[in-house]
C-alpha cells in the first residue's frame, strides 16, 4: 500500500497542542499552537505527592492527556471523531482505511516503542500524540510535530506503540476533526478561556493544583533528605525539571507558549492589556527556567545537596504566577 496525503508538517513545542493545531489547519481551520493552548485552558501546574511515577511524585504543567483537544473542541465548536479498539489488528485496519479514504489522523501512542525517538528520550509515557498522513509499504509516514521533519515508523512498531497496556493506555486511539466552524469568534472565546485557566491556578479547591501547589512544592523540597549522596532528593528535583522541560516545551514549560497566546489574543481582541500581561507571563517563564537551573545545579553538584536556592526561586515563581493570573482576571 502506498499513500501520501497532503499535509503541512510543522515543528511545534508540544505534542497534543501541536497535533490539534496541525489537524485543524488541515481541516480548514487555521489555529496556532499557542492559541490551542490558550483556548483549551490546558496550561496549569499541579504536583501530587501521592501519585508516583517510578517512585517519584507526579508534577505536571498541563491538564491530563486528552483534555486539551477536548476542551478546545468545546470552546470553539469543533467536533472530533475518536475511536478506540479492542484489538491491535482492528486498530491498524481502521488506520489503513482512514488513509485510503483520504483522511489524515491523529494517534495516541507510547513514546518508548516509537523507533524514531532518540534513545535517551524513550521512556514509558503512553500519551504521546502524532499524526499519520501516509503509508509506504511497511512504513507509515508520520508527522510528529515535536520533530523538525516528518518521520517514518514500521507497522509493527506503530501497532505496539498504539496498544501498550498501562497508565494512560492509548487503546489505539485514533482521532480527527469531523466538523470545524468557519472561523473563531475571538471576542467570545478568549475571555472565558483565560478566566478558566486563572481560576484553576488561583482558586482550585485542591492544594495540589495551582499557585498553592507551587508553594506547597517549595515546602516539600525543603523537607527532602539531603544527607550523604541524597540520591532520592536528586531524582526528585530531576523529575520536576524533566516534566517541565521534556513533556513540555523546553525553557520554562508552557509559560512562553501561553505568553505567545496572550500576544496573539491581544491582537485579535484589540486588548492592549493582554500585551503587557504577555510580557509578565514571559517573565514568569524565565523564572521557571531559573528554578530549573537551580535544580539541575544541585543534581550534578558533588557537594552536599542544598535545596534552598531552588525552594526560594520556586516561592518567587509562586508569587509571580499569582500576580499574572490576577492581572489576567482584571484584564478580560
Amino acid at each position, binding site marked *: 500500500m502506498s499513500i501520501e496525503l497532503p499535509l503541512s508538517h510543522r*515543528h*511545534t*513545542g508540544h505534542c497534543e497542542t501541536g497535533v490539534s493545531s496541525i489537524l485543524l489547519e488541515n481541516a480548514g481551520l487555521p489555529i496556532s499552537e*499557542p492559541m490551542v493552548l490558550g483556548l483549551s485552558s490546558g496550561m496549569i501546574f499541579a504536583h501530587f505527592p501521592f501519585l*508516583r511515577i*517510578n*517512585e517519584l511524585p507526579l508534577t505536571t504543567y498541563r491538564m491530563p492527556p486528552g483534555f486539551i483537544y477536548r476542551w478546545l473542541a468545546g470552546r470553539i465548536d469543533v467536533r472530533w471523531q475518536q475511536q478506540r479498539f479492542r484489538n491491535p489488528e482492528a486498530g491498524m485496519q481502521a488506520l489503513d482505511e482512514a488513509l485510503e479514504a483520504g483522511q489524515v489522523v491523529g494517534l495516541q501512542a507510547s513514546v*518508548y*516503542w516509537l523507533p524514531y525517538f*532518540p*534513545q*535517551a*528520550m*524513550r*521512556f*514509558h509515557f503512553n500519551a504521546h500524540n502524532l499524526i499519520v498522513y501516509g503509508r509506504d509499504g511497511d512504513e507509515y509516514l508520520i508527522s510528529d*510535530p*515535536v*520533530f*523538525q521533519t516528518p518521520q517514518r515508523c514500521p507497522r509493527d512498531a506503530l501497532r*505496539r506503540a498504539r496498544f*501498550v*497496556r*498501562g*497508565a494512560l493506555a492509548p487503546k489505539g486511539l485514533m482521532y480527527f476533526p469531523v466538523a470545524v466552524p468557519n472561523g473563531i469568534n475571538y471576542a467570545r472565546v478568549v475571555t472565558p478561556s483565560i478566566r478558566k485557566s486563572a481560576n484553576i491556578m488561583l482558586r482550585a479547591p485542591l492544594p495540589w493544583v495551582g499557585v498553592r501547589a507551587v508553594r506547597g512544592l517549595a515546602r516539600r523540597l525543603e523537607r527532602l533528605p539531603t544527607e550523604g549522596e541524597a540520591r532520592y532528593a*536528586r*531524582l526528585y*528535583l*530531576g*523529575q520536576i*525539571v*524533566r516534566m517541565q*522541560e*521534556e513533556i513540555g*516545551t*523546553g*525553557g*520554562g514549560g508552557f509559560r*512562553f*507558549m501561553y*505568553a*505567545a497566546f496572550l*500576544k*496573539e489574543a491581544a491582537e485579535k481582541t484589540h486588548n492592549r492589556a493582554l500585551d503587557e500581561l*504577555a510580557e509578565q507571563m*514571559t517573565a514568569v*517563564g*524565565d523564572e521557571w*527556567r531559573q528554578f*530549573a*537551573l537551580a*535544580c*539541575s545545579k544541585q*543534581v*550534578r553538584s558533588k557537594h552536599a545537596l542544598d535545596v534552598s536556592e531552588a525552594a526560594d526561586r520556586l516561592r518567587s515563581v509562586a508569587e509571580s504566577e499569582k500576580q499574572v493570573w490576577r492581572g489576567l482576571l482584571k484584564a478580560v
Partner: protein
Amino acid sequence: MKLSEVPQDNNPGYEAEKRAVYAIDDNGRYTVATSTGWEAEDVVNTLAVEEFRRLAQEAHERVLQGEASPLEFHMYDRRMDVPTLAQATGIWQWRLKRHLRPAVFRTLSPRILARYADALGLGLAEVQTLPVEPDA
C-alpha cells in the same frame, strides 16, 4: 525568553534532533525557534537514564549471584519498574514480585512468560536469559 537566550547546548541525548521553543525576537514578537538542547535538561534526563542503568546493572549482579531472576534485569533494562511492568502485563504487583525470585521464575508457564516477553518486547528465550553484559 529572547531568541538570543534560546539554549543551543547540543544535548547528545537529542541525537541531532531539535526542539521547538517559543521566544521573543528583536521586534518583541513571539516566534518559534529551534533549540539543540539545554544543559539543565540534559543533566536531569541523564540522571533518569543512568538511574535505570544502575538498577539494571545491580539486577544483573543479583541474577549472577542467584538472588534475582532474569526478569528483574530485563525489567530495568527496558526502563520499567514493578508498577509499570505490572500494568503493562496485567499481572498483579504482588505476583510479579514473586516472579523476580529465581526459584519461582523457573516454574512459570510458557503463557506467563509470553506475557512478560511481549510486554518487554523480547523473545520467549530472551526473557529467560541473562545477557552476558548488562549494557549489551
